């Protein structure tokens, strides 16, 4: 199994991310699906795609549950079976694992995996409340915790334990906005300065507005097949060579350490072992920067640097687009946007572009191995995938 392709991505597509007024989730999903279909002329999607696994977090945004058959049929997949996978912000990362398992089991030759969220038709306090449903109701939500709040608790602990600074967190935002400014699908295609980040209004101290990812509408899709069928269907394909997923305690307060996401470490170890690669072999990575502190902790959990050194790592310039380990070339959740259910496969979409040399102005030269890190909630779910160009 080590280093062998588990399943192969023959195409990927993204809707435009942003405030998409008057567009329903299903319509965003169809937009992402069409952009994926356009890349594979040899595929007859409605006939060849046998099942769909679709990540979506909440029915509260559009008063709509049972969303997978809706999204699939709007994408022209009918009557193929469609499954909704909900793991908060890790919904479509988890859906991707389901797709891989479906391919590896031999049940299907070609499946579609994706995710979608339509968030901006609710005002920010309501969105804050809907997102908070992915934390524990009786102990976290009941005590006024929000998602910025939970990650702020980790940030405060990280600052206290390791001396991480607000400037180091702000540097994550500056880098990701710089990358997002080069991404035509990004929600906020705009650079920000360190000063703007530090002076932005408080959301949950020490996290400020520009430390937080965006409330975004968007959808993402990837098409998976068996490794041996890939060549017949597409000239641009990418192998998935490692997958890992793990749990941490559901409540943040139950964790031994508040400065690490154990599930991400465990998932990464599983994926690295399966892929037979080490952190230093990674050429490009998409990290779950729902808040700037999450990317700093992500560097540490994935072994890009030692525990506690994430703040220094961003200062070193290694994760810059031209650095030794470019992270969030898409702009990340911070600048590209974070339509919760779509995020996991949107990360995969960026890696697909990078590993097939289609990332345009964001292209990392000679990128061969890519890694995606997708967190659910405050880290009760973590999913890591490792991809290899063909």
């Amino acid at each position, binding site marked *: 199994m080590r280093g062998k392709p588990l399943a192969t991505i023959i195409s990927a597509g993204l809707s435009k991310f942003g405030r998409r007024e008057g567009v329903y989730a299903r319509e965003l999903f169809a937009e992402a699906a069409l952009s994926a279909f356009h890349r594979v002329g040899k595929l007859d999607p409605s006939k060849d795609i046998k099942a769909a696994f679709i990540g979506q977090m909440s029915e509260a945004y559009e008063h709509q549950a049972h969303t997978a058959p809706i999204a699939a049929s709007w994408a022209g997949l009918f009557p193929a079976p469609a499954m909704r996978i909900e793991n908060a912000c890790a919904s479509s990362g988890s859906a991707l694992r389901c797709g891989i398992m479906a391919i590896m089991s031999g049940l299907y030759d070609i499946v579609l995996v994706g995710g979608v969220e339509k968030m901006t038709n609710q005002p920010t306090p309501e969105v804050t409340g809907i997102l908070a449903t992915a934390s524990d109701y009786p102990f976290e939500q*009941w005590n006024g915790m929000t998602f910025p709040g939970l990650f702020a608790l980790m940030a405060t602990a990280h600052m206290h334990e390791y001396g991480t600074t607000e400037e180091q967190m702000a540097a994550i935002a500056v880098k990701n906005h710089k990358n997002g400014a080069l991404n035509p699908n990004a929600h906020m295609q705009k650079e920000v300065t360190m000063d703007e980040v530090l002076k932005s209004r408080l959301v949950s101290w020490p996290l400020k507005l520009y430390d937080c990812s965006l409330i975004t509408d968007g959808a993402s899709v990837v098409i998976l097949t068996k490794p041996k069928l890939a060549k017949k269907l597409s000239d641009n394909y990418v192998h998935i060579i490692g997958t890992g997923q793990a749990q941490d305690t559901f409540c943040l307060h139950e964790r031994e350490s508040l400065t690490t996401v154990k599930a991400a470490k465990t998932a990464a170890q599983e994926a690295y072992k399966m892929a037979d690669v080490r952190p230093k072999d990674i050429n490009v990575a998409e990290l779950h920067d729902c808040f700037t502190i999450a990317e700093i902790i992500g560097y540490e959990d994935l072994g890009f640097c030692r525990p506690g050194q994430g703040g220094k790592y961003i200062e070193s310039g290694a994760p810059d687009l031209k650095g030794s380990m470019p992270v969030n070339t898409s702009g990340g959740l911070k600048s590209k946007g974070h339509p919760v259910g779509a995020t996991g496969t949107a990360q995969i979409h960026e890696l697909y572009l990078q590993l097939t040399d289609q990332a345009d102005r964001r292209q990392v030269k000679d990128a061969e191995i890519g890694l995606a890190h997708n967190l659910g909630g405050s880290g009760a779910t973590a999913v890591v995938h490792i991809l290899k160009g063909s």
Partner: protein
Amino acid sequence: MSELRDPTIEEFYRYCSERKLMAVRCIRCRTVMVPPRAICSNCRHSRVEWVELSQKGKLVTYTVVHVSPPQFKHMTPYAVGIVEMPEGVKIPSIIRTSRPEDLKIGMQLEADFSPRPQEGGWPNWPRYFFKETD
């Protein structure tokens, strides 16, 4: 404990209405847990007992929430944190303080309780919270 109550969240909050901060402890490995549950999170043993926690603990991390869901709007901004109890369990809590800028990791806080709300519906729980010690 003289009384055998189920290791449930509802019972945890019933104790709060009696001004008691409670946790469950595994009778095999002695792990103390909040939220309460029937199966030990450490050793998976399925017998736990209620233990009363001290009402003073140490602040291990905190934040001040400025953007809140609608039900907390009236008290925004407010501080929340995680408090470590001498019994070896941590608890998430609202921290009532008039000076959030004075909060410090490591400071002592004490528990207090507010009554069960009068209105019906679910959830009908009293609240525990922490405040600065006198």
